[in-house]
């Protein structure tokens, strides 16, 4: 009841209603009531939810794979093992889906550091972990980026000190806040458009990745990033995710 504030406003209200016994609004009271532990559980509703809740718990606790080392984004390096894991699995699965609709191949994957929401601890990996790492419903999209926008993308990575996840197909050496070496699938940057997989959130300019907006072509894969994680975990026995120096920073 702490939100019960009182502001008294006499206002003139007249009704357009034509009836024998004319009723008017005499008083209006408005407030909001916080739902917390002071309110008891409604037993019948609780009983109704129970089987759904129990079944959900069982499904969330299903073990999909084994993780030999903690995957987290807590590091001072320009890459993280969890970011590499996410980007690489999306590169693999995303490329299959993209190839089916476009007969083209992806060049690389780029997500944002902030999009990874939890670590994956060492041990059994459950369905729950995929929901914790990726609670959002973001879907995979592929953009065809012009050479100009590719340069914007690379400059963003060079001048932004966050370890944004990229797939192994992109290797960068950053000196100060400039790119000193770029290798995409083993080749130096060419003056041509590139196919980049990202999330619909980032494609819409999220995390200031404005180079993803208004691409030459846009492909919606209609496939959630979390579903990609779940599908990959179902496919493998043991997670293999390592730091491989795909992004290296050299101090000036």
């Amino acid at each position, binding site marked *: 009841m702490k*939100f019960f504030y009182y502001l008294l406003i*006499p206002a003139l209200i007249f009704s357009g209603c034509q009836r024998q016994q*004319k009723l*008017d609004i*005499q008083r209006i009271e*408005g407030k*909001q009531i916080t739902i917390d532990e002071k309110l*008891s559980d*409604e037993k019948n509703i609780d009983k109704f939810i129970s089987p759904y809740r129990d079944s959900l718990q069982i499904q969330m606790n299903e073990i999909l794979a084994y993780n030999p080392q903690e995957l987290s984004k807590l590091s001072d390096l320009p890459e993280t093992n969890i970011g590499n894991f996410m980007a690489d699995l999306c590169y693999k699965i995303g490329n299959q889906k993209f190839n089916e609709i476009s007969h083209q191949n992806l060049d690389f994957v780029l997500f944002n550091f902030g999009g990874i929401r939890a670590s994956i601890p060492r041990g059994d990996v459950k369905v729950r972990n995929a929901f914790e790492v990726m609670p959002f419903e973001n879907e995979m999209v592929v953009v065809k980026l012009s050479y100009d926008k590719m340069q914007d993308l690379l400059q963003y990575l060079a001048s932004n000190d966050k370890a944004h996840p990229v797939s192994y197909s992109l290797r960068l050496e950053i000196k100060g806040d400039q790119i000193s070496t770029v290798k995409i699938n083993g080749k130096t940057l060419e003056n041509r458009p590139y196919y980049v997989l990202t999330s619909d959130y980032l494609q819409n300019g999220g995390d200031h990745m404005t180079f993803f907006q208004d691409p030459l072509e846009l492909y919606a894969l209609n496939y959630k990033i979390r579903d990609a994680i779940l599908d990959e975990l179902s496919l493998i026995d043991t997670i293999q995710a390592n730091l491989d120096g795909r992004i290296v920073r050299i101090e000036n």
Partner: protein
Amino acid sequence: MKRRDFILKSTATTAMIGIGGLGLQAFKKSTSAKHITILHTNDVHSHIDPFPTNDKRNANKGGVTRRATLIQQIRKENPNTLLLDAGDIFQGTPYFNFYHGELEFKLMSKMGYDAATIGNHDFDKGIDGLFKQWPNAQFDFISANYDFTNTVLNGHVKPYQIYIKDGIKIGVFGLGIELDGLVNKTLYKETKYLDPVERAQDMSHTLKKEEKCDLVICLSHLGYNYRKNPDKISDLKLAGLTKDIDLIIGGHTHTFLKKPTVTKNSVGKNMLINQVGWGGINLGRIDYYFDEADNVGQGTNIIV
């Protein structure tokens, strides 16, 4: 028409004293007095269980079982209660990912919701996914500015609905946000977005002047206010561009208001806007007390 100044008081007792003679007159009960309670939620986002105890902001808040208890208590106190939701029922917990909205609709039906409008996230399993859950919703879906003619929802969503409680006629119409840019078109398909201001003007006129409703409520998923984008239509803007709406119950922006907003409509008449955050953390409650015009005298007291 004589207007009174706003009198701000901190507690109920002082407010009663503060209005003096008017208070005594205003609270005099007559045999024809009627009391309508409007309860509302918005952006519950599949939050069926309370927020976890380690949640940074909303630890142990919310929960459908507790909301149901509160609604029962209020209904016992006043059976003439209308229960509304302003959209984004779906998406936000694994309950939605696993059961696709089935449980959300079933629980709202069990709690006795009267009506809901459609939020952008309610399209997250596609318009077909939404329609698949239709049989689980024993309440009305109301939207006046989504044209569903060429979709599976054709004929299943009403622009407005009139509810009669204790002889009081309550007209409720719904408004949804522009879907383009917010929801993938493959999800909302041929749903057409109509101008919410024009539709609100039409609807409120129909409900107040033609249907002669005592109360007109707009159930909106437009969002409370867009400070950085003042041209974007919002509940606050809509209020000033329309007349004949008594109450806007809003959603979308997950706005926590300390108290319902009292604002003026296009003809300078006071009206209310309320929104109660998100996640089922709060229940909004607006009580309307009606009396014969003679007993009401020349003013309505708005106590928020």
